[in-house]
């Protein structure tokens, strides 16, 4: 990346010899302390309780206390090794704080604790990208198994673990998929700030997420977990030790998410440059703000729920075990109280990206700015009132189902605002179809299908057929994969030239879009039919009459996987081998992040900018009498 390349060429102050740099607070010590912490926890756990055995499989050496402690101590060791304890400890001892994490040059800062929001943004992009590919690989294995109508390739236990790992990895990692890389990198620049409000917390959210991803992957050494991403009780309580990996993973993700949200909120509220009033805020920043509210309010619920589940499993409390006075409903209720806002945590940043990018490529101001903002805030508010639509057939509070049906359907009104704003901006536009714009249009199509299929799920009588079937699978892949992931790629193609100073190969980018768009639809459209034909989720054994369609879906999924490889090839080719410099503002964007030099200086701005208009100053003024200057518009 040219940021680092440019930095590396500046002479580094002569100091410690190179090998001495290995000592100290860096990734190496983090890994060593992490492993040490892990074994310490494991040891203490075995002191507290000896082997616990599992009724069904009588697996030996099942000790949840040991594994939970091992994970927790391991994470603490890892963070100390990175240097997260230095600042609080030196302050407590009354010493001046170490400035190690303020290091400004060198590729080394990408591999350790760094408080520059631009470094954290790139760390997030690469780190999340890595786990996204692991999750995608799991999906390929799942689809390989579904080539046959009865298990052939993996056993039923591995199959469930694959589904669980895929779903959990995707849900956990991609919640920060846009906020992590792009909001961390660009929100401070867009609002004219030099840094985030809490730079150390910012770095912490990233490293927590990496530790979490590693822990989830380690579930394969402990027998996997059978519950899917929802972790329902009491199956959760019954499962082997691999379940603890799920619990610790999701709890860490929850903590990371909550801190990320707090940090974003604080930054956006307090650090806007003079003149940047709320009604001039770039729409992407608004979407980040709405998402942050969701993260801060929803994630603690997840952490608390998982803490209860961990206690049930390790020291035999009975929050969720019926025989002991607990309730399986309680878990479902708590989980979805987090889980539904979670799906909007995935969707709203996507809205922000689309609304931010479309004006640039249509050469028009954003149509209906206030409507877009109220749409996102409306979704944020309403998403806390709909969670029991996941439990329509469960028998829980059945008399309240009309209410949840209503609230769920009402949430499509603010979602509709977003569509109207997209459509309004396209009206009489001068659209150029660069790759980011293509991904935005892809979003519009996919999210439309995803949203309209949601109408069937929100209708209780109709949901009786589709609940728990592949119809649901198709629905949420359309909204998440087709919604979030498409905008994720739009953001990559749009902003990576700014982040790295390098350009993507245009032809490969277009091939990536078209293969991904077509393969995506050809993979997930038939799943609606499979669901309606009665295929349940999470089974590797299905009716032979559904075989042909499943083969079609699997082959399309492999093509979808290949399209991801096109992207990977494009990245390696364009950013590592060819390295053509990007123009300083290739999209002729008017927003602030494109006006600062590339690479962005460490402090972003020489002088804090002063805003006197919103960043959507595109287009030629309309003749008097046309266009009807709006009362509701900006």
């Amino acid at each position: 990346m040219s940021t680092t390349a440019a930095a590396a060429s500046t002479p580094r102050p002569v100091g410690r010899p190179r090998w001495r740099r290995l000592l100290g607070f860096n990734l190496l010590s983090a890994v060593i302390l992490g492993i040490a912490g892990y074994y310490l926890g494991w040891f203490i756990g075995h002191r507290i309780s000896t082997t616990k055995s599992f009724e069904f499989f009588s697996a030996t050496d099942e000790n949840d206390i040991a594994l939970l402690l091992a994970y927790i101590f391991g994470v603490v060791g890892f963070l100390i090794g990175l240097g997260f304890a230095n600042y609080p400890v030196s302050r407590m001892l009354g010493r001046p704080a170490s400035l190690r994490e303020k290091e400004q040059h060198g590729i080394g800062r990408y591999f350790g604790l760094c408080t520059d929001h631009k470094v954290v943004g790139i760390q997030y992009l690469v780190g999340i990208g890595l786990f996204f590919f692991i999750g995608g690989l799991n999906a390929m294995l799942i689809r390989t198994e579904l080539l046959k109508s009865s298990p052939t390739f993996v056993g039923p236990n591995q199959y469930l673990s694959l589904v669980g790992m895929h779903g959990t990895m995707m849900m956990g990692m991609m919640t920060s998929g846009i906020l992590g890389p792009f909001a961390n990198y660009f929100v401070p620049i867009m609002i004219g700030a030099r840094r985030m409000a809490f730079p150390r917390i910012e770095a912490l959210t990233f490293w927590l997420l990496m530790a979490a991803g590693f822990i989830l992957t380690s579930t394969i050494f402990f027998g996997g977990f059978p519950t899917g991403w929802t972790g329902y009780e009491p199956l959760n309580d019954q499962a082997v030790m691999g379940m603890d990996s799920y619990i610790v993973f999701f709890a860490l993700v929850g903590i990371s998410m909550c801190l990320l949200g707090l940090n974003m909120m604080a930054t956006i509220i307090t650090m806007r440059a003079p003149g940047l009033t709320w009604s001039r805020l770039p729409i992407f920043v608004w979407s980040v703000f709405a998402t942050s509210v969701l993260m801060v309010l929803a994630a603690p619920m997840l952490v608390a729920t998982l803490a209860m589940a961990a206690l049930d499993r390790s020291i035999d409390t009975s929050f969720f075990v019926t025989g002991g006075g607990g309730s399986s409903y309680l878990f479902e209720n708590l989980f979805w109280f987090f889980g539904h806002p979670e799906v909007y945590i995935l969707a709203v940043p996507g809205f922000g990206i689309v609304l931010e990018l479309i004006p640039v490529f249509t050469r028009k101001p954003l149509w209906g700015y206030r409507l877009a903002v109220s749409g996102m805030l409306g979704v944020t508010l309403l998403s806390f009132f709909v969670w029991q639509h996941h439990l329509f057939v469960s028998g829980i509070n059945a008399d309240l189902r009309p209410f949840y049906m209503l609230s769920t359907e009402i949430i499509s009104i603010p979602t509709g605002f977003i569509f109207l704003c997209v459509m309004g901006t396209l009206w009489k536009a001068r659209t150029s179809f660069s790759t980011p714009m293509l991904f935005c249009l892809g979003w519009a199509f996919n999210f439309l299908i995803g949203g309209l299929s949601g109408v069937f799920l929100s209708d209780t009588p109709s949901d009786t057929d589709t609940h728990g079937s592949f119809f649901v699978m198709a629905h949420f892949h359309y909204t998440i994969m087709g919604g979030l992931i498409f905008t994720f790629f739009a953001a990559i193609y749009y902003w990576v030239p700014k982040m790295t100073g390098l350009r993507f190969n245009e032809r490969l980018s277009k091939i990536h879009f078209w293969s991904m768009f077509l393969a995506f639809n050809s993979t997930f459209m038939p799943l609606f039919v499979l669901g309606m034909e009665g295929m349940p989720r999470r089974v590797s054994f299905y009716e032979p009459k559904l075989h042909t369609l499943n083969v079609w879906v699997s082959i399309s999924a492999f093509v979808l996987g290949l399209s991801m490889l096109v992207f990977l090839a494009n990245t390696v080719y364009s950013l590592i081998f060819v390295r053509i410099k990007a123009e300083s503002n290739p999209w002729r964007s008017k927003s602030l992040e494109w006006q600062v030099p590339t690479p962005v200086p460490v402090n972003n701005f020489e002088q804090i900018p002063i805003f006197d208009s919103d960043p959507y100053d595109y287009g030629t003024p309309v003749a008097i009498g046309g266009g009807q200057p709006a009362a509701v518009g900006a």
Partner: protein
Amino acid sequence: MAAEPHPGVAEPNHARRFTAIWLIASVIATPLVVFLLGPELPPGHGSEQASGHVTDNTVLLAMATPVLLLVLVYLIYAVINFRQPPGGMLEGPAIRGDARIQTTWIVITSALVLSLAAYGTVRLLADNGAGSGSGPTPLTVPKGHKLQVQVIAQQWAFTYRYPEYGGVETTHLELPVNQMVEMHVTSLDVIHSFWAYQLGVKADANPGVDNVLFVKPTKEETFEVHCSELCGIWHGYMFDHGHVVSPQAFETWIHQQETTMAPAKKVLPPYAHTYSPEPTRRAG
């Protein structure tokens, strides 16, 4: 909408043209969806509830079609008509909103959404839960005699008890045709979900919970029973076939079951809405 800011160029009236295309497309597509696709929609006509779902799905699809077409036709129209000429650097008109369009949009989407919710509620209540699990005390209950059947889920099989026949427990499900059935779904261990696809029936089975649903089969046929909530490694195998048969055939079958299952019945607990077995957990 807005007059074009380029005087020399004659632009067609895009608003009118787009509206016309959309109206024509909707007028053609909606009846096609209702009359061609509608009857084919799942889950078929195995029960009154299933037929109800077919109607519901048709109504929802009929409402969704014009909305789908509105956005889709618009996107295609915009992509074709509103382009930057190759190599061009033109700016679009700086329209920042339109109060009339925004208000119309809000009013129409709200009306659509509220009528959907009202329709769903009416259908749910009028059809006594529409075949879905409605908790231990459903809000509405059909009149007349209801055949009582209990569905007991456990890892990894469903069994059924018929309290009106001495609480006999059978390993598969038979129901008489045209008879309202009251099913009580419960579980002995983890969460399962009882899904009888052709009957349009689904209800979660939670341990310690009695989840009631009503269904009236209308066709003598074999139907699929799946578990539709992940319940452990053999979840995918928790599937079976049930039968809807004539009332006479049902009587014969159930009496036969009473005799063959008599030895097993001796060790069964007395019939109850829920059972509280030892919790299966990894207590150490």
